[in-house]
């Protein structure tokens, strides 16, 4: 079959990095193929998508060298971050922007816009809807609609669901499946459970940008499982495999803490944004907060950290918590974007920041703890690096490490595993579990149902600004953990 995009002996190097990302990479995609690119983070999958689409070097200025390169005549590109791929404020204007670029006459535009929105399953009351009011899944479907406006032969998808929730992910992939019939699709993605049935070719890269495997999915997943696991790729059933191998950690003597909340309310702009009627939480509990986008999960966490105005009775170990200062050194909040919390210019300064604030740098015990944490989190050899220069997974680990150094009694985390590969996810969750067993109360917002299955001890479900259900996992019969979903939805 004829080839639609290819590159022959590609050499590519990032200006600020040593060594070539690709050295003589040859790849060709045939017309109509549905290709999945897999590989450890930093192996250059996304970069390759940009080369094959011609974005590199036309739009992104990175020098490349190749014997020959074939770029499809018409293509569309879906990016990872739903918020930074639109340039107009309203849905209709965004699609119109593409139609304008294609010089479609004005009188045909409204019809085309409605048609495109229907194709991706976005049925809005008014096409003149603000983009920022859409959920992540809807935004990505809007992105698909704008791409379809280009009538592309090839659609490139660069981790389109990394930053959106489970429900949105399903919507996006359903849409992709519906529109992919006579198109070539090239996908980079970590969460691959839901797309395996559309994919007919899988290409696996090694960390140094070489092709390790290339074939249909059955061939790749049966022959290269060990490698995929080592690279941290989310292959089908990664969670089940992980669980089998997991060794229970030795139990350390836990410290005991307790939270008590009654008629607890958090406010945004003087409006009651979250309500928690009553709850008591003990040491060693790992609570997962679930719910749809915008239900109030993050608001609940911000309120519990006293970063929003709250009312009601909130006590930790019997003492009332009324303001942020009451929680200092007792609770810690890990934000979704780790960069927000970095304050210094090197990893080692970052992790010892709290100690220096308290003039405890000279305290040998604390210095040892800081070093231990760096070792555990795999950041020992990155000590001198600027936190911004770390990879996403490393940044996240550093931000959790800075939480652990404080020995918090309550640890709040907002989507800590978003966009992480399986290696980083399991590592992070194990570290959290250890901390949990030592007595830290963990409350975490996540969309990942597997975390509920395998790590959490308790689930809070939030809906329309209210915690509507609260159940402990050991209270239900844990015979078949697969059925846990039923209790949540």
């Amino acid at each position, binding site marked *: 079959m004829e080839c639609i995009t290819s590159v022959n002996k590609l050499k590519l190097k990032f200006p600020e990095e040593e060594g070539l990302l690709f050295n003589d990479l040859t790849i060709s995609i045939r017309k109509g193929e549905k290709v999945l690119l897999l590989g450890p983070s930093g192996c250059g999958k996304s970069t390759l998508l940009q080369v094959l689409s011609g974005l590199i070097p036309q739009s992104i200025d990175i020098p490349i060298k190749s014997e020959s390169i074939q770029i499809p005549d018409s293509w569309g590109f879906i*990016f990872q971050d739903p918020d930074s791929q639109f*340039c107009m404020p309203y849905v209709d204007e965004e699609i119109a922007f593409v139609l304008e670029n294609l010089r479609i006459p004005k009188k045909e535009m409204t019809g085309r816009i409605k048609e495109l929105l229907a194709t991706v399953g976005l049925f809005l009351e008014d096409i003149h809807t603000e983009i920022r009011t859409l959920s992540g899944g809807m935004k990505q479907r809007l992105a698909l609609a704008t791409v379809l406006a280009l009538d592309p032969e090839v659609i490139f998808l660069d981790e389109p669901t990394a930053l959106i929730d489970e429900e949105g992910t399903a919507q996006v992939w359903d849409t992709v499946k519906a529109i992919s019939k006579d198109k070539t699709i090239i996908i980079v993605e970590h969460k691959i459970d839901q797309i395996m049935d559309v994919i007919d070719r899988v290409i696996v890269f090694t960390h140094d940008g070489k092709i390790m495997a290339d074939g249909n999915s059955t061939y790749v997943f049966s022959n290269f499982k060990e490698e995929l696991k080592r690279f941290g790729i989310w292959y089908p059933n990664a969670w089940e495999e992980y669980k089998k191998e997991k060794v229970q950690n030795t139990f350390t003597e836990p410290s005991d803490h307790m939270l008590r909340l009654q008629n607890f309310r958090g406010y945004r702009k003087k409006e009651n944004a979250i309500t928690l009627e009553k709850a008591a939480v003990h040491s060693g509990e790992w609570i997962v907060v679930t719910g749809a986008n915008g239900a109030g999960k993050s608001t609940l966490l911000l309120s519990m950290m006293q970063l929003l105005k709250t009312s009601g009775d909130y006590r930790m170990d019997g003492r009332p918590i009324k303001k942020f200062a009451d929680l200092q050194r007792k609770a810690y909040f890990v934000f979704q974007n780790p960069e927000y919390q970095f304050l210094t210019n090197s990893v080692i300064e970052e992790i010892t920041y709290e100690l220096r604030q308290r003039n405890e740098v000279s305290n040998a015990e604390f210095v040892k703890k800081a070093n231990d944490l760096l070792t555990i989190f795999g950041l020992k050899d990155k000590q001198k690096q600027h936190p911004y220069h770390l990879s996403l997974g490393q940044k996240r680990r550093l931000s959790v490490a800075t939480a652990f150094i404080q020995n918090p009694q309550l640890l709040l985390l907002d989507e800590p595993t978003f966009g992480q590969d399986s290696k980083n996810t399991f590592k992070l969750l194990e570290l959290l579990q250890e901390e949990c067993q030592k007595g830290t109360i963990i409350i975490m917002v996540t969309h990942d149902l597997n975390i509920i299955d395998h790590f959490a001890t308790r689930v809070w479900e939030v809906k329309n600004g209210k915690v509507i259900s609260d159940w402990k996992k050991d209270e239900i019969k844990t015979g078949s953990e697969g059925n846990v979903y039923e209790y949540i939805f």
Partner: protein
Amino acid sequence: MNISFEESWLHKVNPALKLFTLTFLFVFAVTIHHLNYMITFTLTVSILFFFCTGQPYKHLLLFLLPFLLVFFSTAVSMILFGKGETTLFKWGLVNVTEESLYRGLHLGFRALVFAMMGITFVLTTKPVQLFYSLMQQLKLHPKYAYSFMAAIRLIPIMFEELQTIRDARKVRGIQSQKGLSGVLKSIKSLPIPLLSQSIRRAFRIAVAMEAKRFNSSNARTFYYHIGFSIYDLLFIVYFVLTISLAYFFALEFPLFPVTDVRH
């Protein structure tokens, strides 16, 4: 910001024409040295401001509040400490003369009229419409127009982000630093993560725009056709008429016995 309001006829005026007219009136206001005329001119603008923006009065007054402060502060400082010959009141450093009183009032009104024209424009013009109009009527290059529109979209995102960064840093114990050096340090450290995010986001949007075949050198069609209408005529006629009337009233029925505040 999402404030509900009714669309008035001012919303229907061609944005480029509105911008052009108001810019002209800005310059025009600078050339008015006649206090009585300045007052009547302010009146003509305030009629538009209060009755034709389609906003509830509560919002209008709220928007005007900071500018009223500017009005009083510029007027008062000029009145109390200005130079002049005919002293009305003297107490220590305070020296109110007839000339300084008029000059102060004049300056205050000028500040007020600037503010009202500016707010009226912002309240009755959608950024997207303005840039479409600039592209169509004044042949603004699409490269700049779409860059601005994309940038405007980023502003609310940046504000949200600023709040999150503040919270994130509070958790890390930033606020525990006391004194001026602590405050300075936190001011210094905020822009770095904020800018790093914004620059990255801006770059991504730019790439996404090119991926959607935005090409600044090609001709393009427009989703919104911004033309001229009867409202544009109304807008021009309103100003020509009211400014003439203002001049007439200022001459015939002067509020203050003064012609040129410069003398």
